[in-house]
């Protein structure tokens, strides 16, 4: 049964990767990175259980957390870029 889940997760990771490569917008890529991260968390949980090593679950937690922070950092980066663009636009309009 675990194998079913693992395979499903792996395939989904591959699909997410395809989306990340295809884009087309950067936000699609952020989405697929986020998806990829959560799927990795699931994968590791399953592997941890398969290998009989519950201590690996710490890893899964760390991944979930790092993934979240990574995604927020990326979004912050984009928001500040958007803000800069909007500000430049409004300045241009004022002139």
């Amino acid at each position, binding site marked *: 049964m675990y194998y079913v889940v693992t395979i499903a997760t792996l395939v989904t990771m591959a699909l997410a990767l395809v989306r990340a490569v295809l884009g087309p917008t950067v936000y699609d890529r952020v989405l697929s990175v986020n998806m990829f991260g959560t799927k990795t968390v699931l994968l590791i949980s399953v592997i941890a259980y398969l*290998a*009989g*090593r519950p*201590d*690996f679950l710490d890893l899964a937690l760390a991944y979930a957390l790092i993934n979240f922070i990574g995604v927020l950092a990326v979004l912050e980066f984009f928001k500040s870029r958007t803000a800069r663009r909007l500000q430049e636009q409004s300045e241009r309009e004022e002139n």
Partner: protein
Amino acid sequence: MELLGIYHYWVFAVLLMIGFYAVVAKVNLVKKLIGLSLFQSAVFLLYITMGKVSGGTAPIFLKDMIDPVFSNPLPQVLILTAIVVGISTTALGLGIVVRIKEEYGTIEEDEIQEIDRR
């Protein structure tokens, strides 16, 4: 099993090639650093692969373990150190790139050379 072993090493070789290609052929400095990261990651894979024992488990004793087979802890220790070295190099490289951008207004290698030639 044997094929898998070779597969690991081949992936190592391919990753090495991809990273190395990015380092030597790309003109964008950030891209070069990305290539460098890939290049170093390939080496991590080499080390960790050689430490694996089939049927082994991570070298951490658990309470209810009877006669465990452990994979080799030494390459793992080495790679922990190497990862840290890698991120340090990347950070320093990025710092230099930022300074280059501030001084030259570009981070493309050929444009920088062009500016220096003038």
